[in-house]
């Protein structure tokens, strides 16, 4: 893991107030390989967003550090693109200007025409070729997030960070944009780190899912490999024999084990346990009857 493209080591975040210390997460260590799509799932308050912000350079950890491509991560950089949950488009710029502004920041020496052509290309890739000159306020939530994704991919960062990018979208729109994300990702072979609350979304997109235990003192407890062949389709992925094994394993963790100190807590590990549910025997604890609604409540 030390030789991974991105290495997160012993990361911890502590908030100190007058009379108490709140350890949000501690001893978080994992790696991300080049070209890998990694999702992280955990209950609210476990510090997922803080980990992503530290990766982005927007927040500082209390302990530990991050090394990407042989260099320590200090502060924000164009090498790490971020897609925020609330899109974070600049409302006074048009769709095209929002992307073009990022492209110009990335390659200041490009000619105007080159930058525009590059920007238009990525907007077309997310199906927004017809809305180049609209303001974000004239776009639906799904279209805004497409612009945000186009902006992030257009700058060709070494690591792409997605902070629950589909959290504010309705289920139908979400499905469509997941497909588009998969398409762009397979075309660009980006390294992606993504936060999500949606187990199905994580299985569809990820090579590996990191599971976080509940905070305070949250940890990355397990690293679940998703051994389902690509290209994956939203419609057919459920037919893969591994799909429900993985899904049950994840749901079981989130509902039954994430808050269980004895199982995931303690100082006995600092590297997440690697799990491959698809390869394990079929007599895994069956959790298929768990109510999805209960999970939604639990993870929100």
């Amino acid at each position, binding site marked *: 893991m030390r030789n991974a493209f991105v290495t997160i080591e012993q990361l911890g975040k502590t908030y100190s107030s007058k009379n108490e210390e709140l350890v949000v997460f501690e001893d978080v260590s994992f790696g991300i390989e080049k070209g890998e799509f990694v999702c992280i799932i955990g209950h609210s308050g476990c510090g997922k967003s803080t980990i992503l912000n530290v990766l982005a350079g*927007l927040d500082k950890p209390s302990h530990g550090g991050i090394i990407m491509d042989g260099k320590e991560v200090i502060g924000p950089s164009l090498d790490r693109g*971020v897609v925020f949950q609330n899109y974070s488009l600049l*409302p*006074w710029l048009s769709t095209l200007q929002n992307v073009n502004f990022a492209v110009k920041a990335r390659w200041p020496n490009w000619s105007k025409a080159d930058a525009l052509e590059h920007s238009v290309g990525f907007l077309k890739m997310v199906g927004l070729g017809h809305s180049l000159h609209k303001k*974000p306020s004239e776009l639906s939530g799904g279209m805004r997030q497409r612009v945000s994704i186009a902006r992030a991919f257009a700058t060709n960062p070494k690591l792409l960070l997605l902070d629950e990018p589909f959290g504010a979208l309705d289920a139908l729109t979400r499905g469509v944009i997941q497909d588009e994300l998969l398409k762009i990702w397979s075309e660009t072979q980006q390294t992606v780190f993504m936060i999500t609350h949606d187990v199905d979304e994580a299985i569809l997109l990820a090579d590996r899912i990191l599971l976080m235990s509940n905070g305070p003192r949250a940890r990355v407890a397990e690293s679940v490999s998703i051994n389902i062949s690509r290209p994956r389709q939203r419609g057919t992925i459920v037919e893969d024999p591994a799909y429900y094994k993985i899904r049950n394993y994840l749901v079981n963790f989130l509902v039954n084990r994430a808050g269980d100190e004895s199982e995931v807590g303690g100082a006995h590990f600092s590297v997440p346990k690697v799990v491959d549910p698809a390869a394990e025997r079929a007599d895994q604890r069956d959790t298929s009857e768990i109510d999805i609604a209960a999970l939604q409540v639990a993870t929100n």
Partner: protein
Amino acid sequence: MSSLAARSALVSVCLLVGLLGLWEALNQPPTASEALTEFEILMGGVDQEARVPPPSQVMSHAWHELSNPFYDAGPNDKGIGIQLAYSLFRVLTGYVSAALVAIPLGFIIGMSPLMHRALNPFIQVLRPISPLAWMPLALFIIKDSEQSAIFVIFICSIWPMLINTAFGVANVRSDWISVAQTHELSQLKTAFLVILPAAAPTILTGMRISIGIAWLVIVAAEMLVGGTGIGYYVWNEWNNLDLNSVIFSILMIGVVGMALDFALGRVEKLVQYKE
């Protein structure tokens, strides 16, 4: 049913006609039973009380003044256009120099919590001072009444712009700052490409408040410094006991103030954005 705009316009016209009619009716000079002596005419007719001129008189005077607004017949007899131009020149000079100071300073205060804390006591003490209270000091230091009036406009229009700029800059959404940071924008580029457009509507609101205050203050300042300008004109016509001109110039002050506000309102609309 007619539209709301048409109906409200109808009510406005009715109010205008009604109020002008009332004013006209209440201020008719009494009919004299015999021809007045020249002395009686000078003293306002047979009536013992001075009367406000009726709107018909004011309007015919206004027509007369507006038909030749730029005549110049010596220091005490200039057209209304010349007087307004003097006032506008002072207001715009003081206002623009205030904007040149207030907006960059507001940026510094808004972006730096240290400067905000350090400068806040000065702002809090200086802001409530009536701009006219600066006049004696300005006259003593600058030794020029024209420039003193401009200084008074400068000092009164600086505060709303300064405070609104600082507030707008300090409250730019942190997401947009994050976007600037993740795109490695320099401090200067962040200020011009992200913070300025984000805070522009708030800054323009401050500029609009300032121009209103500046136009209020110029009338009083010119009454003090004298010589030229619409404020001086009002006071001078009062000394001439020419109430037609006084009422006419009051209306002109209102019309010009409205035009200034309208112009900045248009600019404000230009920089407005919807989230």
